[in-house]
């Protein structure tokens, strides 16, 4: 046991500096040789008055400074009002050090800032120079109540429970438990049940499977690939090697409602590679076969968390997602070669129609976008 662990506030120093020194190689020796275990709190150091406490001229100066800051605040507020009523919302002017910017934004901002800072700094200066500068001591009491009071509280609870007889009457206890458990359900069911529809097959289909009719049914009709946002079909011959197009299925951009919802699943990126650039493996061959003459189409929705994969490096044939930097290799069927995504971007099988326009040969064969639990 270590008596030297004890707090020592009550130990009064009995030794003087003339007492024999303690050899520390004898180990910790506290309370012997006349020394307390720890130093005593010397108490508050003597108060040093501020200049403004002893020199009336300094106090007067502080008073003027404070009043000056408050006056600045008044000027700021007036500046704000003048700015508000003098200039139109679209007025723009050149301001030194700032350049051309909205006149009202600058005048209102500067005026309000001055109005607030004048008061703020003035009051702070006041509190530091003229208000009483001596710290005072308030005593702190143990937070806990007395043992009796705590016991009384516990008794109150015990008596309350006894008075309700809930423990003596199990019929009430268990039926109430059941009722309370059940009554939360209606509220929860209303909320959760009415928030939104069930996903059903919505994650598996896109506008490439056809746009929904009145009954929400989609029928595949080999849609043309159209440019987004120009809404123009693309001739295979217009897609030169190295080019990259952002496309949607024909008809989507003519919709009035749910355009964003359909785009969120149907956005596709089209690139043309030299057919020889595809990797000489199963992945590369599949990518090329699902394309047309080196033109390939892939879902633009990242398989990580769904950002549009918007950056294409022509020389390496890599697609990069700007959100979390997943990198997909187009020559290997958009396999992930870097970053946090796991699955390749789904490929859209394409071909050309009689007039030479690119069309979808089949819808996406798997859900596009981020992974989810019930996805295969």
């Amino acid at each position, binding site marked *: *046991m*270590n008596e030297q662990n004890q707090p020592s506030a009550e130990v009064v120093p009995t030794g003087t*500096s003339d007492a024999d*020194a303690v*050899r*520390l*190689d004898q*180990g910790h*020796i506290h309370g012997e040789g006349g*020394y307390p*275990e*720890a130093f005593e*709190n010397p108490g508050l*150091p003597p108060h040093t008055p501020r200049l403004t406490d002893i020199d009336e001229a300094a106090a007067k100066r502080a008073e003027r400074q404070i009043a000056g800051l408050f006056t600045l605040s008044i000027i700021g507020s007036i500046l704000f009002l003048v700015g508000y009523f003098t200039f139109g*919302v*679209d007025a723009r002017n050149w301001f030194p050090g*700032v350049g051309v910017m909205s006149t*009202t*934004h600058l005048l*209102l*901002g*500067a005026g*309000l*800032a001055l109005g*607030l800072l004048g*008061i*703020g700094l003035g*009051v*702070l200066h*006041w509190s530091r120079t003229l*208000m*009483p500068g001596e*710290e*005072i*001591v*308030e005593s*702190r009491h143990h937070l806990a109540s007395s043992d009796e009071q705590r016991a009384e509280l516990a008794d109150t609870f015990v008596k309350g429970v006894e008075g309700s007889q809930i423990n003596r009457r199990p019929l009430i206890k268990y039926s109430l438990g059941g009722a309370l458990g059940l009554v939360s359900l209606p509220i929860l069911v209303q909320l959760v049940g009415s928030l*939104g529809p069930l*996903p059903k097959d919505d994650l598996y289909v896109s506008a490439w499977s056809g746009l929904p009719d009145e009954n929400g049914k989609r029928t595949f009709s080999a849609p043309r690939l159209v440019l987004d946002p120009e809404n123009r079909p693309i001739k295979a011959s217009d897609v030169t090697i190295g080019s990259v197009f952002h496309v*949607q299925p024909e008809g989507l951009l003519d919709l009035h409602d749910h355009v964003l*919802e359909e*785009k*969120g699943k149907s956005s596709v990126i089209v690139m043309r590679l030299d057919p020889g650039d595809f990797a000489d493996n199963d992945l590369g061959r599949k990518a090329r076969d699902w394309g047309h003459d080196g033109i390939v189409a892939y879902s633009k*929705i990242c398989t990580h*968390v*769904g*950002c*549009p994969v*918007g950056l294409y490096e022509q020389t390496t044939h890599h697609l990069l997602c*700007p959100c*979390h930097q997943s990198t997909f290799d187009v020559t290997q069927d958009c396999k992930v070669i*870097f*970053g*946090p995504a*796991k699955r390749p971007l789904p490929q859209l099988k394409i071909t050309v129609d009689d007039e030479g326009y690119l069309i979808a040969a089949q819808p996406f064969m798997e859900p596009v976008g981020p*992974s*989810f*639990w*019930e996805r*295969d």
Partner: protein
Amino acid sequence: MSTTASTPRPADRLREADQPAPRQVDGLTAWIDDRTGAAPGIKYLMKKVFPDHWSFMIGEVALFSMLIALLTGVFLTFWFDPSMAHTVYNGSYVPLQGVEMSRAYASALDISFDIKGGLLIRQLHHWAALLFIVSLNVHMFRVFFTGAFRKPRELNWVLGTVLSLLAIVEGFAGYSLPDDLLSGTGLRAMQGFTITTPVIGSYLVYFIFGGTFPGTDIMPRLYSVHILLIPALLLGLAIAHVVLVMVHKHTQYPGPGKTEKNVVGYPVLPIYAAKQTGFFFTVFGILTLISTFFTINAIWVHGPYDPNATTAGAQPDWYMGFADGALRLLPGWLELDLGSFTLSLNVMLGALVLLPLVFIIQGAYPFLEAWVTGDKREHHLLDRPRNAPVRTGLGAAALTAYGILMFTTSNDIMAIKLHLSINDITRTYQVLIFVLPPLVFWAVKRICISLQRADREKVLHGRETSRLMQSAEGGFSELHEPLNEYDRWHYVSYEPTYPLLEGETGSDTPGVAGSGRKVSKARAAFSRFYFQDSINPVTPAELEAAHHDHETHEVIEASAEPREQIEAAEKH
């Protein structure tokens, strides 16, 4: 009001009828007290003492910026329309005229361009929100590193933890509302990581978004969360937080005259109240200056949200950075293919597990530390961070991990600005997240211990005076001047600590360590981890020995080493 005259004089009788001149304030206090009986309570509050220190101001910045965000937020609700209905923009911002967009985005543009002072309010709102979360975090660091979370303030620490979680959710909901390209991309990522929740993920997002992403329900829903649900919780919890501060009375830094049983500082009236008022206006003023001259969230730059469009360098507001950074670091192979199910740990761990985990660890820390130290006493005097080397090291390591995740959010911008490969940067961070925190822990702990040793040195040998003395033999030595008792108290006023030993029935100090309960092996091990390198304060005996016997310096320092050595020495 002299009533102490011992011998009544005839003239006193005349004065008896004299009443002090009635003051207006008497009438006011009487009116209030008649209806509330609150006179003593209000008087107590007005005379309450608050200690003064610059670091106590950080929490006030958080409180004030929250209030400013609330105030400006109310203004914004008068013009903002949280609707996904289509509209064609015809406001005064020329580049977007004729563009199809949602009412939400169009009204946010109107606030920025067509409502006088609207941009100032919008900028103030965003800057105040950012400052709120920054200052809230820095306030939390102050509380952590000074040990202010110890008993009896654990509950308030938990309240603060909940506040900080709510604050970032509130921030996310807020910057998702304008429906510009960036905010839509943020929502898209949110939908993308929520859908990875095992089993219920797809149901969850269809409920949240009311169907296919993005749908038209999300904006009004986010809006009611952002302006009603979370602000009410934030305000209520913030009030509870401040009330608890008053109930506990504020902690104070150790120093001469300051004890566990007192509060040294300034009373509410007039000083503390004046300082708070002045400070509120100053914070408001500085935020206004920033909002005037520095644009945050220029929603007009990238146009309306389009699932097919994106910008390079997309990143969330800074406080969501650590979660986004984790998403960038987690490797793709963590997505597991479980037959007909998919478990996307690569997304889940960063987005759905990390956030709650951070806040659970944060909220639990005071209880963990109390268990390790076995300390059940109240603490109102703060620790200097150096006097709790292990806690300071742990905090620094946690901050390092957080910082790495946050910086990872900018890996693409770093790659561009520094002309480095983004792959190299990301891989470096993947290594650093494991290597750097332990290193920082070790380094910070050692630095703390060195500072403690320097403190001991200063107490034992006094401060260097820069005055040289030449001895009779011709040797030079520097004069050291002993510290006065006030300065010395600064360095010695902390409690010595020792590791609990296995099987021990706790320490003798009342309230410390399971009195009568045997210390378990695990607890003893943790206690050793915390305290085996403790450097304890100089005792009067040590100081005296240092004065008398300059050859024992080494011995003095050795005596501050672990308790085992001390006990070994005692046995001999």
